[in-house]
């Protein structure tokens, strides 16, 4: 993933979407038609402030602002878009919820609305109408969006994170079918890649996106979990120890230094040809296309393998949007989300995001982006394959805190680098989890 975007500190950049030119006249036409038909009519004089995560791909933001401009022209409702680095959205939203003032709409990570369920606008009517129109919400979207039977947020999209590999290296290592679909086969591939001097590597450092994504897959694929359905810590288990042993074996076959990797390290190493397999979003491939690099032709993406758990155990980022009850313009908030998720707009936005972002509504399986390039197609499924943060437990702030504190990443890093035995690393991580889930 893009290092500088991830690491960018308070950007404070704002864009008044209404002032933007709209490239395609079709978009404005659709927007006006939608404004006539929608059941969510914006209030007179409505003006919205939207706080969002800072984009990773410029074309996504450009398209988003274009859509907002169309919304403004169709409804007369001005939208001010504020950007913050993804780690800073949650603290700002929490303060806004507490003081009852701030952005009308916030768009942040994972389970953001669950941090202050009683402050969120009830979006049930909107979610129901969208679900009905677009083939229903995928299960992970419902988990992130609903509190009980009430929708308190809309997971606008998911951010996929999959195995990125060099086709030629895998062929040379004897894996011409690409990445094996099971854990054991995957380990064999990593060993074989190391054998030909083209090793694999994934981040074991404090890498918020990439590190958390693959380590949670490794943990869950062995049937282990941090907590049970009642949020009781159950991490200290033979399955978690087996997962640590497995990751240690993987790391032994990887390029040295992965324990120091952050979100940008694997991109650099893969693009420079230092590693031939890693985990990442679509950004490496996109960079290959944008910069005309040969690597784009010699790389592809693969699902994470399936382990003893027997089902996909992936963790992909969810980007959930919420509106606050304190907003003076609740209907405008709903109208904006409704507009964004309508086919004419959403397809265009997915296109702009270049498969970096994936839909939460089933009907968008047919969006043109997923068939325009077979190497992007795999990202279509990340919303359906992902487990939610917290897995078996709640999706609230405790799960978010456990991810933010890198408990799983550090457990594997301790075991993989030999700082602790697998059993000790698991016990240590379980103690940390107990602190959060106390």
């Amino acid at each position: 993933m893009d290092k500088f975007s991830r690491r960018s500190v308070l950007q404070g950049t704002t864009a008044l979407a209404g002032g933007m030119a709209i490239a395609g006249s079709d978009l404005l036409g659709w927007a006006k038609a939608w404004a006539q038909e929608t059941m969510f009519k914006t209030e007179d004089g409505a003006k919205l402030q939207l706080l969002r995560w800072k984009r990773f791909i410029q074309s996504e933001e450009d398209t988003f602002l274009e859509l907002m401009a169309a919304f403004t022209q169709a409804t007369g409702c001005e939208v001010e878009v504020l950007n913050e680095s993804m780690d800073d959205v949650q603290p700002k939203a929490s303060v806004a919820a507490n003081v009852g003032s701030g952005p009308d709409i916030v768009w942040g990570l994972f389970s953001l609305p669950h941090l202050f369920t009683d402050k969120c606008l009830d979006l049930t009517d909107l979610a129901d109408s969208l679900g009905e129109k677009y083939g229903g919400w995928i299960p992970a979207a419902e988990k992130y969006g609903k509190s009980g039977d009430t929708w308190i947020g809309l997971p606008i999209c998911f951010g996929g994170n999959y195995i990125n590999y060099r086709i030629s290296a895998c062929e040379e290592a004897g894996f011409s079918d690409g990445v094996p679909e099971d854990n054991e086969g995957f380990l064999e591939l990593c060993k074989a890649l190391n054998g030909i001097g083209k090793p694999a590597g994934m981040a074991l450092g404090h890498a918020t996106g990439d590190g958390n994504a693959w380590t949670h897959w490794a943990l869950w694929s062995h049937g282990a979990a941090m907590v049970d359905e009642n949020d009781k810590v159950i991490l200290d288990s033979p399955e978690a120890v087996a997962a640590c042993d497995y990751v240690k074996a993987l790391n032994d076959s990887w390029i040295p230094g992965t324990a120091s990797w952050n979100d940008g390290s694997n991109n650099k190493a893969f693009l420079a040809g230092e590693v031939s397999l890693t985990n990442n979003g679509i950004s490496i491939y996109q960079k290959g296309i944008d910069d005309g690099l040969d690597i784009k032709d010699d790389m592809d993406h693969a699902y994470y393998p399936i382990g003893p758990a027997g089902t996909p155990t992936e963790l992909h980022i969810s980007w959930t949007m919420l509106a606050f009850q304190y907003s003076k313009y609740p209907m405008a908030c709903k109208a904006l989300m409704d507009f964004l998720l309508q086919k004419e707009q959403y397809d265009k936005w997915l296109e702009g995001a270049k498969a970096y972002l994936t839909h939460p509504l089933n009907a968008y399986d047919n969006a043109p982006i997923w068939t325009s390039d077979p190497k992007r197609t795999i990202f279509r499924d990340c919303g359906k394959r992902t487990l939610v943060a917290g897995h078996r437990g709640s999706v609230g702030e405790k799960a978010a805190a456990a991810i933010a504190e890198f408990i799983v990443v550090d457990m594997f890093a301790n075991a993989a680098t030999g700082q602790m035995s697998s059993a000790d690393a698991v016990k240590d991580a379980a103690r940390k989890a107990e602190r959060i889930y106390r």
Partner: protein
Amino acid sequence: MADTALDHAPVLVVEHRSFWERLKVSRNWLGFWFMLPTLTILLAFLLYPLLKGIWLSMTDARIGRSGNFVGLENFIWLWGDSVFWVSVFNTLVYTSFASIVKFAIGLYLAILLNNNLPFKSVLRAIILLPFIVPTVLSAIAFWWIYDAQFSIISWTLTELGLIDQYVNFLGDPWNARWSVIAANIWRGVPFVAITLLAGLQTVSPSLYEAATIDGATPWQNFRFITYPLLTPIIAVVMTFSVLFTFTDFQLIWAITRGGPANATHLMATLSYQRAILGGYMGEGAAIATAMIPFLLAAIMISWFGLQRRKWQQGESDD
């Protein structure tokens, strides 16, 4: 006569001024009124945040929620938290080692620059460069220098045939600790050097002349003239140096984010991670509050130890 005298006695005018009016014009209170603006600023921007932080450390506050008073519960949890103790250990190692080396190199550079060297002004300006560069920028430079795959140090050593494999600077706990300490030293030396140089220039050359006539060696010159006269400025420099190092955040956050496996977490970075990213404001504040005794101890040692008059005069302590 008597009546007349009484009739013409000067009339004592007793002014009935209120307490507030008397305070306003009292010379005894004048100093207080002049200090009031400064006092207000200090209270608002120093004391209030400090007390608020201590208060937060005794609550279960989350970001955006004020929380309830929980007494010392946060501290009790921290007492049994291995990551907290790792961060305390890291902070002490980081501070003590970096401060000592920064002092040694800084003093050496200061003495060197105090001599008559060609291009003295240019050299002094160059020495200040690491201090001028924004911390985040230098941290990113070090992040590249220490990169597991692209390190210039590893590349050079490999090209020279001294090593076969790139150095795992930030992937091994102790390598990572020494690496961030080295980055901190690089950044902190100019402050020590330039401040000590300012101190050195206040030492009268006549003292050295007299000592030289008495047959003092260069070491004796340093030990019995330079060092005693420099101790007040050393006290100030080391106090600030220790405070800056102990509370360092940017370097660590930009280079390692506390990794690998918390091996480089300082108390400041752990506090931020728990309070802001994890959302546990109370616990983060407790970690920050736990830094206060260490910082107070550092200040006490500097001020009451190094500033003893007898030390300054080169006599032994009794």
